[in-house]
Each structure stands twice: as C-alpha cells, then as structure tokens.
C-alpha cells in the first residue's frame, strides 16, 4: 500500500502519477559510479566512437551507466564526452588534476560534449597534470575501478532508503515475471483454441465442397 495515503499499489504506475521516474532517479544517485571525486580533480574527458565495433562497448556503457552517477555527486566537475565516427580511433579517458589549491583556475574554456569528434581533449594547463585511462576493449566496471583508484575517489554507500527502494523495484520485477508467464499461458491457450476452431471450420468447408 502507498505510504502516504494507504491506497493499494498498482502494478506499474502509482496513483500519484510517479510511474518509473523514481526508478530513474534512484539509478542516477545510487549504484556503481556514485562517488565523491577529490577536489584536485578539475575535469574529466572521454573519447570513444559511436558504435561498439573495435572495443567501444565498455566506454559507452561507462558513459550511459556510471557517468550520470558521478556527475550527480560531482556537479561542479565538467564531464565531457567526445564521440567520433572513426571506429578504429582511440577510446581514452583523460582526468585533469590541479594539485595547487591556491592557484587561480585557468581561463581557457573547456570544450563541450560533441557527437562529431569536434571536442578532443585539450592539453593540460601549466598548473595541471593529466592521467589517461585506456578504455578500449575493457568492461565498464573495470574502467570505473581504475578511475576510482587513480583519483582516490570515495565511493558512496547507498542509504537505507535507497536500499529499500532497490528491493522494492526488484520485488516488482519478480512479480511482473510471474504475471508475464501467467498471461502468456492464457494467451497461448486462447490462440490454440482459435487455431483449432479455424482448422475445424476450414476442414468442414472442404468436406462440404467435396461432398457437394
């Protein structure tokens, strides 16, 4: 039942109109990639190709699954993705560090994300250093681990409320599997009945035609 108004929960969309937005938000703030980057990390740049041929599946999954969580917890850090159509091109993550906290941040503008390869990773400024992570042919979880260790980031554990929500959605998923099988059985039975009836009718017609 609903926690706020005790109405029974429907299968997919609850009566407050939330639908699966809660699930989307949960997946943005919790899960692998939810981590606080240290203050030294100033920018993150990713470079990989549009399609997966050539080992670009890992970086793509990292972008779609882990980067949103990183961005949510570190909104002030520019995280730019440069995608190209060259499948044989590199798949590299560049992390920019500024170790001198008192220094003024550089005024050179960082390029924005692009889908046509027009925002390659810029050279580091004088007071910056870069760390590159090769992403080609590697799983997104491996890429994430390397990023977390190389930056010294602190992964955030999900709160009790988040864990409860994860369990709720797993529950929903399990129930929907059961329902799916039950409905599938019903529909299959109906289809079989219909097919049998149609066959009987057509047989009857052919008998009628031959006998007449």
């Amino acid at each position, binding site marked *: 039942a609903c926690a706020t108004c005790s109405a029974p929960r429907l299968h997919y969309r609850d009566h407050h109109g939330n639908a699966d937005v809660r699930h989307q938000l949960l997946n*943005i703030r919790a899960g692998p990639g939810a981590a606080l980057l240290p203050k030294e990390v100033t920018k993150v740049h990713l470079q990989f190709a549009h399609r997966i041929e050539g080992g670009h599946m890992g970086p793509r999954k990292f972008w779609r699954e882990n980067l949103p969580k990183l961005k949510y917890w570190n909104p002030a850090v520019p995280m730019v993705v440069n995608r190209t159509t060259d499948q044989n091109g590199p798949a590299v993550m560049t992390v920019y560090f500024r170790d001198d906290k008192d220094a003024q941040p550089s005024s050179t503008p*960082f390029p924005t994300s692009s889908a046509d390869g027009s925002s390659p990773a810029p050279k580091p400024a004088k007071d910056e250093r870069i760390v590159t992570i090769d992403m080609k042919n590697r799983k997104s979880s491996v890429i994430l681990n390397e990023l977390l260790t190389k930056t010294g980031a602190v992964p955030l554990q999900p709160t009790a409320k988040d864990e409860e929500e994860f369990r709720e959605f797993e529950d929903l998923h399990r129930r929907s599997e059961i329902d799916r099988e039950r409905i599938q059985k019903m529909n299959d039975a109906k289809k079989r009945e219909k097919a049998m009836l149609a066959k*009987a009718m057509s047989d009857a017609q052919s008998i009628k035609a031959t006998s007449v």
Partner: protein
Amino acid sequence: MASTQQCLASLARLSLSTPPRAALPTIPKFLVPSVGASQVRYATHTSNKGGAKKAPKKKKQYKFFKSWDLTGMQQFSLCDAMRYLRAAEVGQPPLTVKYEVHVKLRTKKGGPVVRDRVRLPTPVKTDTRIAVICPEGSELQEEAKRLGAVLAGEETVFEAIRSGNFLFNKLLCHTESEGALRKANVGKLLGPKGLMPSGKTKTITNNLEATFRDMIGMDEYRERDGVVRMAVGQLGFTPKQLAENIRAFMAKIKSDISKMDDSTPKLLEEVVLSTTHGPGLSLNAEFAPTDDKIKPEDLEAVM
C-alpha cells in the same frame, strides 16, 4: 470416421440438427472445436427482443481532463531538478538538449485553449526561418527578403510547399495574398505542421516588419489536452537563467488565463520540468538546492 464427418458436416451447414449426443464420445475430445460443438441452442431463446439492436456498453464520458492526486508526489526545487537532469544528460552535446516545461491545467475538455507567444529573457531557439506569401514581384517581396525571409512571393512559396521542400519553419501571409493562398489548396500540407497562416495565430498581416520582430525571438505555445508545453532553456543555461525563463513563461500563462472568459475556468495544477533525454520532475516553487553541500554555482559547469 462417419460420425466425425457427420459432426463436421452439420457444423458446415450450421444447422440445428446436430448428431445425437451419443455419437460425440467416439471423437477424441481434442479434435472437437469447443465453441462450435458445445453451443446449446434452444428454439425459444432469442437474444434480440423485438428486433432491436443490442446496444454496445456506453463508455463513461469525462468533462474534465484527468487530474492526479499530488499529495504523495515527490516535488523538487529548481536546483535539485537541474542536478538530476544534468546528470541524466551528461555527455550529450549541449546545443541538442533543451529544458522543457509542462504546465498541467485543470480545464474542461473541448473548450477554448490557451494560445499565445512569449518573449523569454534568455532566448532558446535561434534558428527561425520565415517564408512570406506576398504578391509576386512586388515591393513587398523585396521587403520580406530584406527583413530576412528565406522565401518570398506566391508561386515560389507554393511550389516549395507542394514539393515538400520546407526551407522555412514559420509561414506568413500578407493580407493581399490571402485569396491566392486559399486558391492554392496547400492547407492539407500546412495544417498538420501548424504552418497554415491565419488571423488567430497573427500570421496574416499587413505590417511585415512588426510581425517579423515578433516572430524572431518570440516562442509560441499552445494548450493541448489540458497541458501547455514549451522549451524554456538549453542545457548550457545557468540556474538563474532557467529560473527567469520559467518565471516569465508562468507569468504569461497566468495573464492569458485571467484574460480568458470566466465560463471556462482554468486552474494551474502542476509544473513539470524535463529535458530531451531526461526524466520529468514535478517542481515545487522553490529555487535553492536542498543539499547544503551543493551551491547553484556548481550547476554551471561545462557540459
């Protein structure tokens, strides 16, 4: 075999004289179509009384668009919503991503709709291409070209429409060419795209210069199915810019509603902020982030 033939033959004739029940058990049950064979018919039973057609079950007609109960709805301040949306849109080219606002109204179905133009403090769209239908070869055509129209004239524009070559996304018509527009029969091609010039949308005009000034920089909005939707920002906007735009949009809608006839009341129900690829988040009227570790300036980073 004979009994099977008998059964199926009677089925073919769709007659009431089915073979006696005793014959049926000789046929394996799975070969007998369940619906046809088990149908029991009585001579006195009529489903149509007096020959009247059986009325289909009437669907309940609703006068108002559906309203959701918002008591348990999770609502967000603008900065909180932007934090989630910018995370959902990370890595997308910022010019291809727009913030959009959906304003749900409590309103009757089929009544007059809210429909107007608003000038936002920070404009969103920068690519309005206007075509003008005006007398061919006249001064008006030159004036239109001078003001920045991509296409001007009568036949040139009509041909472009008929060939599907839409170089423009807004269409104006000068009052002198109204007759030609009607004769050209392009309504069927323009109507679905919302490009048909009409007095209601202020696209049939005498004064080209004023209308051009209005169109470039003014965004149209229209209520459909009880919701007004419009793009109010791009991904690169700061929280302050987005807040200003949303405030201007809401103020305009409220003033439009107050100008409307009292017979069809329209009430603001919900305001939802969303982006091109992101979730839709219901807004409460607040601005500041609820997490004290985050400041509005943090949401201005390059995307």
